[in-house]
């Protein structure tokens, strides 16, 4: 419990900054998009007349320009990038920070098994991520209701989109943790987390733009594509299970690796 509290406290500042950043992104971009959404109502009817193959080729088949939630999908993608960076930051630094700052010498001799230490740390990171998650929920509902000007939106679809955040965060947290344990020494957390989160983002963005599915199906940005969820009112389960599967492999593997890990000590 002490470890949990200590860890949780050390996350508070970063959680505050990320939550504020997400709130600002939602507020600023949604109000900006909202201004165009009124003009683009006609554009949607125009788009509907085009052949579907073409719209798929340009990644616009799932986008609904005329509605509140159609634009929310675009804003949410920006939030997803931030959430991915935050979660993979926490994942990569979760246990590697002790070795980098030479505090492993202090932590590991405590009368606690490594399993317990890791559990406390994961739970603390999860609690921190959940606060950011709640902040995104609150900012989304707040902003949409502030700007909808009497228009209606499908609250159930919005809830469905926002519910994916926790799995999305867990994916990056657990993959980050696993990679950090596979490495002998993690020097720079942020370069690794950028590579993971932006790599996944680019893979999906470029993959959606042209051609058929190939490697981008490993990207969580693809699994939890907000436009798909909004338009179909359903998750793309065949892809969501990939995310769930990765999490279910990464977490136990991390426990195994951490138990056997050879810790770099100060002396």
């Amino acid at each position, binding site marked *: 419990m002490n470890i949990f509290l200590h860890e949780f406290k050390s996350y508070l500042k970063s959680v505050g900054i990320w939550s504020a950043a997400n709130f600002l992104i939602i507020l600023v971009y949604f109000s*900006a998009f909202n201004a165009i959404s009124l003009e683009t109502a006609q554009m949607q009817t125009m788009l509907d007349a085009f052949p579907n193959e073409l719209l798929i080729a340009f990644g616009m088949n799932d986008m609904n320009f005329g509605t509140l939630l159609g634009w929310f999908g675009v804003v949410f993608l920006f939030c997803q990038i931030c959430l991915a960076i935050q979660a993979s930051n926490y994942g990569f630094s979760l246990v590697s920070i002790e070795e980098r700052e030479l505090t492993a010498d202090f932590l590991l001799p405590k009368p606690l098994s490594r399993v317990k230490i890791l559990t406390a740390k994961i739970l603390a990171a999860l609690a921190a991520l959940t606060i950011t998650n709640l902040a995104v929920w609150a900012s989304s509902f707040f902003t949409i209701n502030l700007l909808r000007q009497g228009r209606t939106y499908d609250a159930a679809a919005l809830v469905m989109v926002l519910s994916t955040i926790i799995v999305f965060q867990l994916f990056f947290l657990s993959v980050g943790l696993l990679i950090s344990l596979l490495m002998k020494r993690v020097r720079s957390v942020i370069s690794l987390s*950028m590579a993971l989160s932006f790599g996944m983002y680019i893979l999906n963005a470029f993959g959606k733009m042209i*051609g*058929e599915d190939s490697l981008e199906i490993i990207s969580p940005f693809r699994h939890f594509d907000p436009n798909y969820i909004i338009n179909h009112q359903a998750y793309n389960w065949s892809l969501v299970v990939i995310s769930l599967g990765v999490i279910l492999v990464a977490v136990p593997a991390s426990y195994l690796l951490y138990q056997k890990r050879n810790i770099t000590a100060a002396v």
Partner: protein
Amino acid sequence: MRIYLRELKANFKSLLIYTGVVAFFVVVGFQKFTAYAQNPEILDVLDSMPKAMLDTFYMNAFNLTTVEGFFGVMYAFVALILAIAAVMWGSEIISKEERDKTVEFALTLPVKRSTLITAKAAAALTNCILLALATWGLNAVSASGYDPGPEFYTFLFQGMAALVLLQVIFLSIGIFIGCAMKQHKRAGSVAISILLGTYFFSVIAGLRDEWDFLKYLSPFKYFDPVMILRESRIEPVYLWLSAGIIVACLSGAYLIYQRRDLYI
């Protein structure tokens, strides 16, 4: 010179990783291109659409069935990868000394602080150029199978030259942040926030006339692949802006690092 070589060696692994990322991306991209190469059907569909509609989405800018057009679409993503590499290298090459607790050693060497920064910046710049060269080579090799014309090679060369400039912009921003941040741990996160902010600006800048000014705030918008392909040039105002950013960041970095209080 020794510092320069030492830094090059220390960053070699990171260079290899980024080259790997670019290679992976280029391979996946060109694999997708096979579906489009010389496939005129999609062009017929494009031709039947209204002109205004095509302009809105820049669809007429690039002909996806040719290698040039395809590279034009990939360009934005290549730019993003290269910019991430540059900003990370820039901020880390300075701040890592404090993180790895080697700063006492580095600064007691009989060289001035400004010489230290110069050597480090030169090493990071070399890395950036090597990465751009690798990207160039990878694209040229992957494209050679589709027997591209000379205009592809010109476009590729000019596009990559523009990307080196983009890298230098982000490298100087990174170096400035590395020198200016009091807490070395913040350097990386601040560099990322700037990169993310400018990237988000570039995504929405084209959507509405009133937001047009955002393109001046985002270096990603400075080097427009359409203009490079069609007219082989870059708007002069962007060149001046780039030069301004680079000079301001680098001189700021030297000034601040001279009197920096170190975290030991």
